[in-house]
């Protein structure tokens, strides 16, 4: 009996044979690995595996406890769903990248020390960037480079933090950071917050995800931000700063979603908003709050992937992504509409959908912790969530103005993947028990109370009333929104301008000066030097040489070569030394 199968390795090593397999065998293989990984995760026993020493530091490749098992479970389920959705792809590259991406995310979730964590953290960044590069075209490739550069920068910050933290605490083991947060811990926190897409470090997400491939974006929506939630829950539970950042995020994403015209970018802003609930939950830090953040991450991965799959299906079929160019698809894509709406009800936290049993846990935890403002702000954000993902996006994408687009349902594998995610969204909402049993702390929370149901429905349906009354104000506009990526996109342009204009001009001016002034001066100096050399220095050197030659002649005359002369000289010397010694030192 094998005690421990490392799921991360299953994916990463499992990626190697993909390019060599063909047709049906490859498809079967692509599904087999996630299924095996899911079984491996379900069979995991809490404990520590793969302890070793590296540079005389303790390393722990895999630490298995309840928190890591919840995330690993949903990651492997998601890998299976994502693979079904991507099954029709013929090129192996994206499948390989997705496997490495999932494997690295699992590596982070099990990492027991910072070095292992960092290694997989970078693996995630590079593997996921490929999913943007694979889309091709100038826009995507530029976005992919920006994505990669932001993540590499974040990785360097994280590594700096790890080194400082290890020097201060003397250990690389990854666990809760307690007491006062040191400089190293702040850097680690910044690295984590970047991957969690906390504003102002959020723009990489909304910049890159909509530019990724249809299938790649589904994977990306699931893993990067949720591993960040995991590491925050592991290292920084109860950090007050996170509560406020989480609330700001939840509202930030919702505000930008109003302005957005690109369907997947709108959904990406809702990742920012939803991760805000999780970050706030981690910040509150009570058992209920951490349970809430964890379960919300679980539910979020499934419904957000479902929404991305729905929007991806529309892009796959129509080739269009802007709400101003979409509409009237419900006649030709009713199944896609129905499955998308299940995801929309789940993210909006309608009763009997997954969001209802998880999001409310975070809000209840805020209430229990006497944070009235947090409670109200998060409730307001859920109103905005339904407004956009449940009303605005489906209205303009599937209903609204009929643009007469030729459309059909997407390929069968895409529909099956969406149905799998939709089934889980409903199953978790109707039977929350199994999910609650997975959570890190014992759950004493009942989502289905009468007051909670009427309260949620009140907020949601009266949001719908607002939508109906002010529909015109919500009409999508043909614009893009400025986010914090402005700083590096315009900043890079300013840098290039500086490099091309003032810097190049300065360089030219300098070379002009050297040609017109410095070079002739140098020539003249050299000529003077030559003259000084010829007449002055050479004369001195020659003079010295002559003097030495003359001295040598004198010496030569003294050296007679007769031994008795030398012996006499030595004896005279000895007598002289003795005489001096006797007279002077006596």
């Amino acid at each position, binding site marked *: 009996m094998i005690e421990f199968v490392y799921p991360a390795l299953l994916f990463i090593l499992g990626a190697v044979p993909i390019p060599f397999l063909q047709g049906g065998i490859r498809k079967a293989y692509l599904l087999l690995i996630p299924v095996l990984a899911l079984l491996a995760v379900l069979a995991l026993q809490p404990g520590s595996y793969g302890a070793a020493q590296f540079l005389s530091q303790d390393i722990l490749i895999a630490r298995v406890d309840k928190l890591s098992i919840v995330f690993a479970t949903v990651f492997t389920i998601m890998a299976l769903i994502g693979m079904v959705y991507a099954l029709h792809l013929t090129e192996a590259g994206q499948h390989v990248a997705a496997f490495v991406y999932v494997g690295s995310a699992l590596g982070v979730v099990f990492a027991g020390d910072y070095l292992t964590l960092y290694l997989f953290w970078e693996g995630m960044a590079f593997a996921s960037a490929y999913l943007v590069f694979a889309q091709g075209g100038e826009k995507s490739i530029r976005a992919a480079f920006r994505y990669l550069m932001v993540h590499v920068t974040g990785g360097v910050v994280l590594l700096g933090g790890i080194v400082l933290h290890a020097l201060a605490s003397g250990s690389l083991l990854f666990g809760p950071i307690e007491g006062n947060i040191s400089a190293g811990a702040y850097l680690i926190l910044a690295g984590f917050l970047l991957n969690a897409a906390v504003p102002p470090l959020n723009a990489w997400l909304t910049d890159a995800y909509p530019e990724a491939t249809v299938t790649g974006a589904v994977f990306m929506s699931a893993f990067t931000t949720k591993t960040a939630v995991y590491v925050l829950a592991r290292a920084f539970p109860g950090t007050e700063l996170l509560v406020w950042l989480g609330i700001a995020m939840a509202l930030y994403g*919702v505000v930008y979603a*109003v302005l957005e015209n690109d369907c997947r970018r709108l959904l990406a802003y809702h990742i920012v908003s939803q991760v805000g609930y999780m970050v706030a939950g981690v910040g509150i830090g009570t058992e209920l709050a951490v349970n809430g953040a964890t379960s919300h991450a679980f539910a979020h991965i499934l419904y957000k992937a479902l929404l991305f799959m729905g929007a991806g299906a529309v892009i796959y079929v129509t080739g269009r992504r802007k709400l101003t160019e979409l509409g009237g698809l*419900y006649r030709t894509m009713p199944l896609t509409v*129905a499955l998308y709406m299940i995801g929309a009800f789940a993210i909006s936290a309608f009763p009997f959908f997954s969001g209802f049993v998880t999001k409310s846990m975070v809000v209840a935890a805020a209430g229990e912790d006497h944070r009235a403002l947090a409670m109200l702000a998060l409730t307001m954000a859920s109103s905005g969530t339904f407004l956009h993902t449940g009303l605005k996006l489906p209205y303009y994408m599937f209903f609204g103005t009929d643009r007469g687009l030729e459309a059909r349902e997407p390929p069968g594998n895409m529909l099956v993947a969406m149905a799998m995610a939709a089934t889980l969204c409903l199953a978790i909402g109707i039977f929350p028990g199994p999910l609650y049993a997975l959570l890190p702390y014992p759950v004493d929370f009942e989502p289905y109370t009468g007051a909670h149901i009427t309260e949620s429905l009140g907020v949601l349906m009266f*949001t719908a009333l*607002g939508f109906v009354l002010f529909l015109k*104000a919500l009409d999508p506009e043909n614009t*893009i929104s*400025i986010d914090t990526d402005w700083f590096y996109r315009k900043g890079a342009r300013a840098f290039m301008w500086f490099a091309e204009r003032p810097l190049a001009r300065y360089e030219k001016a300098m070379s002009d000066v050297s040609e017109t002034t410095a070079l002739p001066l140098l020539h003249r100096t050299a000529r003077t030097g030559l003259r000084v050399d010829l007449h002055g220095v050479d004369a001195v050197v020659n003079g010295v040489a002559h003097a030495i030659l003359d001295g040598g002649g004198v010496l030569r005359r003294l050296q007679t070569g007769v031994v008795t002369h030398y012996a006499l000289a030595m004896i005279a010397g000895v007598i002289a030394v003795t005489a001096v010694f006797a007279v002077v030192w006596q």
Partner: protein
Amino acid sequence: MIKRIVGFFGDEAHARQRRRLFYVVLVLIVAADFVVHREHAEYLWERLPGWSAVYGFVSCVLLIFVSKFLGHQGGLMRSEDYYD
């Protein structure tokens, strides 16, 4: 069946029925909020029946107009070739 349900929400022919159904649901929700049993209500608003309806509506309107204000007057929305 799914096609018919989706069609009900899309087809112009059902617009009247849709609207009627929507308003009935709204009334039912507010009515239910008045009769529902509240075990522990820690905050003032939790004791007010119909509060969630008002808060949901106000949130929605605020989000729409504040965001659009930031987009148009705050200069967040730019033409698509802004970065080109």
